[in-house]
C-alpha cells in the first residue's frame, strides 16, 4: 500500500513536471481565452487589499477549525461571485473600497483576537465582505478577453489565496504558531486601517 502511494506520488510529480515543461500549443479556439485566463489569475493577486483579506479568511478558518475551515472556503467563492454578478448587472453598491478596507480590518482583528463566534456569524461576516470583493474585482474584464476564462482564473486565484491562508494557519497547532498567527492578524488589521484611511481620504 505504501509502495502504491509512493508510486502514485512519483507518477503525479512526473506528470506535473512534464505538463509544466511542455511547450504551449496556441490553438486560438476562441479569441481572448488565454489572455482572459491569465488576467483573471493575475487580478486577485495584484491588489494587496484583496490578497490580505483572502489570506485572513484562510487564517481565521484554520483558527476556528472544523467545520469552519472548509465551510468558509466553500461559501466565500459563491458569495463573492454573487457580488460580481451584482456588479455586472449594474446594481449600485456604495462604499466598495471602504468595504474592502474594512474587511481587512475586521478579518485581521478576528485573527488577532483569535475570536470564536458562532459558525453562522463567522460565515455571515465573511460572506458580507465577499460581496464587496466580488463587486470590485470580479467585473474588471479588459475588452476582447473571454469572460468565462477570466472568471475561471479569478475564482481559482482567489481560492488559492484561501488555501495559502489555511496552509499558513496550520501552524496553529503549536504554541508559537498561535502567537505568530495573532501577530499576522494584527498586521493585516493595521494594513486594513491604512487602506481605510486611503479610501476615505
Amino acid at each position: 500500500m505504501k509502495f502504491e502511494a509512493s508510486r502514485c506520488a512519483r507518477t503525479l510529480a512526473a506528470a506535473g513536471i512534464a505538463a509544466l515543461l511542455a511547450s504551449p500549443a496556441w490553438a486560438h479556439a476562441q479569441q481572448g481565452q488565454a489572455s482572459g485566463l491569465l488576467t483573471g489569475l493575475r487580478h486577485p493577486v495584484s491588489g494587496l487589499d484583496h490578497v490580505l483579506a483572502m489570506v485572513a479568511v484562510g487564517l481565521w478558518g484554520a483558527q476556528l477549525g472544523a467545520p469552519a475551515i472548509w465551510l468558509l472556503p466553500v461559501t466565500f467563492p459563491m458569495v463573492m461571485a454573487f457580488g460580481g454578478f451584482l456588479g455586472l448587472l449594474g446594481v449600485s453598491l456604495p462604499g466598495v473600497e471602504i468595504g474592502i478596507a474594512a474587511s481587512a480590518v475586521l478579518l485581521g482583528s478576528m485573527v488577532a483576537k483569535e475570536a470564536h463566534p458562532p459558525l453562522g456569524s463567522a460565515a455571515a461576516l465573511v460572506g458580507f465582505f465577499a460581496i464587496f470583493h466580488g463587486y470590485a474585482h470580479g467585473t474588471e474584464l479588459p475588452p476582447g478577453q473571454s469572460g468565462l476564462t477570466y472568471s475561471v482564473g479569478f475564482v481559482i486565484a482567489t481560492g488559492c489565496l484561501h488555501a495559502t491562508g489555511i496552509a499558513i494557519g496550520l501552524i496553529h497547532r503549536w504554541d508559537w504558531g498561535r502567537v505568530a498567527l495573532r501577530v499576522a492578524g494584527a498586521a493585516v488589521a493595521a494594513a486594513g486601517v491604512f487602506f481605510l484611511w486611503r479610501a476615505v481620504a
Partner: protein
Amino acid sequence: MRRRVLAAIAIGWVLLWSGTAHAHLVTTGLGPVYDGVSHLFTTFDDLLPVVAMALLAGLNGPISGRRALFTLPVAWLAAGVAGYSGPVALLPAGVTSLSLLALGILTAADLKLGPPVVTALAVGLGIVHGWLNGAGIAVAGREASGLVGIAAAIFVVAALLSALVASLQRPWTRIAVRVAGSWIAAIGLLLLGWTLSGRI
C-alpha cells in the same frame, strides 16, 4: 404559482437568448475526430460542465458514476447528431452558465441525489450541450465526425474523474471536491452576469 414559475422561465429564456451557436472546433491537422477531442480540452464552455457532472456523479457513488459515464457521452453524441442534422435551432447562450451554476451548487452541497436523478442530469446536460455542439459544427461547415471525438473525450474525462471521486475515503478529500464544486458554481454565476450584461 405555476404561472409565475412559467413566466420566470420565459423571462429568463428571453434574457439569455442568443442567435449564435458555438462549436469552435480546433484544426489539429489530424482529422475531424481529433479536432473533436481537442475541442473539449480547449473549450471551457463544454469542459467545465463535464467536470462538474463527473464530480457530482462520483460524489453520489459508484452506481451513479457508472450510469453518468455511459449516459453523458451517448446523450451528447445523439443530441449532437440531431443538432447537426436538424434545422439550426437557437439555444440560450446562458446554457453554460446555468449548467455550471446548477451542477456546482449540487456538488458543493454534496446532496445525495440517487442514481436516477444523476442519470437524468447527465442526459439533460448531454442533450443541451451536444445539440449546441452539433448545430455549431453544422454552421461552421465542419464534419460531423468531430462529435465522435468530443463524445470519446467526454467518456475519458468522466471515467477518470468520477472514478477518482467515488474512490475517495478520507473526509477532507470529499471536502476538496465540494470546494471545487463551489468554485464551479462561482464561475457559473459570474458567467451568468457576463451573459445578462451583454459583455460577452
